[in-house]
């Protein structure tokens, strides 16, 4: 065999072996392209967020002091619910049409493409919520520094929601009970994220330092980034087994 043929074979073997980066970029690009071609889902998530956040002043009363007081918490709860409602879209369609099974058969490790799918999901759901939050905060009359901390806490917290929710969505694939079951699985796990996320903005609004809350939230993000993509991959494998 000539040297050229040998190097071509190794290149093909390299390709067939798959890698974390290969799986990650492939899955992320694919899901982003899908989201780009059907933008309605992302738009609906953001619209839901704005809608829920505007229901609270109508229900509770619109006194400015009250709104400033509840603003950070309401915005976080609304963002959490919006992120939750976007979860079924993460795996359901791929599970039904068999793409998910093909992904588990691909040479790339599950860790790679699972992380890629979740990253794409966050860019489509969590990131728009983060970017929109200062606008909603203005409606609640929050101070500029509170708005900034609010957006920062969402920037750190929504990826944790996507990772935790992704694991739950993968576990609930094909289960009876659908959305209600997913709520029972995911919402209790979201509680710490909500506490520290809303706590950061609230501390800033009341003149305390948001640093402890943000540090804990970031620690949670790091732990989630290390552990949960593996759990999502394992959950998908259980689902398609």
């Amino acid at each position, binding site marked *: 065999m000539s040297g050229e043929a040998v190097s071509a074979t190794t290149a093909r073997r390299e390709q067939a072996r798959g890698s974390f980066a290969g799986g990650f970029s492939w899955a992320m690009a694919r899901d982003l392209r899908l989201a780009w071609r059907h933008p309605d889902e992302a738009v609906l998530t953001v619209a839901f967020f704005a809608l829920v956040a505007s229901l609270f002043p109508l229900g509770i009363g619109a006194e400015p002091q009250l709104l400033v007081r509840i603003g950070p918490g309401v915005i976080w709860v609304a963002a959490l619910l919006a992120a939750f409602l976007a979860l079924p879209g993460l795996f359901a369609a791929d599970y039904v049409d068999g793409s998910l099974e093909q992904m588990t058969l691909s040479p790339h490790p599950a860790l790679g493409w699972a992380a890629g799918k979740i990253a794409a999901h966050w860019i489509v759901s969590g990131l728009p919520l983060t970017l929109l939050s200062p606008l909603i905060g203005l409606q609640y009359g929050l101070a500029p520094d509170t708005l900034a901390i609010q957006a920062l806490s969402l920037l750190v917290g929504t990826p944790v929601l996507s990772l935790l929710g992704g694991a739950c969505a993968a576990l609930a694939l094909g289960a009876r009970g659908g959305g209600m079951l997913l709520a029972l699985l995911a919402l*209790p796990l979201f509680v710490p994220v909500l506490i520290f996320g809303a706590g950061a903005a609230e501390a800033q609004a009341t003149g305390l330092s948001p640093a402890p809350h943000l540090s804990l939230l970031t620690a949670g993000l790091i732990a989630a980034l290390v552990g949960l993509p593996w759990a999502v991959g394992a*959950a998908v494998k259980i689902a398609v*087994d």
Partner: protein
Amino acid sequence: MNWFYFASPATFYGLAGRMAPWFFVTAAILAAWGLYLGLGVAPTDAQQGEVYRVIFIHVPTAWMSMFLYFVMACYCGLTLVFNTRLSAMMARAIAPTGALMTFVALWTGSFWGRPTWGTYWVWDARLTSELVLLFLYFGYMALANAFEDPRRGDRASALLAIIGVVNLPIIYFSVQWWNTLHQGSSVSFKGTSMHVTMLTGMLVMSAAAWMYAIGATLVRVRSVILERERRAQWVRNLPEAA
């Protein structure tokens, strides 16, 4: 000796049936002794009066609620790693008892809170994380039963239980990490700030809760085994099936 002899549902079914009554009898004796110590012998608390006596139910169930989740998660780990059948059945059998313990801990806690704190419920870290634990148990049970294929439910719920383990240190250390209304622990490995009779009563009640939990789990795992293995020949050969 074959250590895996009782890892088979068929052999464990009989063993569980023979052991369960002993655990229940021990639990009843210990509970009677513990309640006698707690309600009859232990002195009235200097600050709280007679109300504190709910501690003899509250603390043992709260301990068991966390410990049972840990045991359940260990069985779930065995399920995922070794794909053993009995460990998944044990995890399923533990979950309802764990949820019961969590519920009793929350319930007695709120009855204790009313006279001492002036409220049934506060949203502090200890209470909230214990409530999350209750929902984790509910989520585990719902997911385990949500699939046509029980093996799929075993594996999916096992992974969920393992993810939920992060809640345990949060509950346990919540009274140290946050300034909470819930008091800190009175018992530690270094010593205790309690009267000796109170401590004895509480430990005896904990042992009773422990024995009850084992007995209830063994009874429940027998019915899980029967349900899952109903088509197996050994089940049809059981004297009670005839």
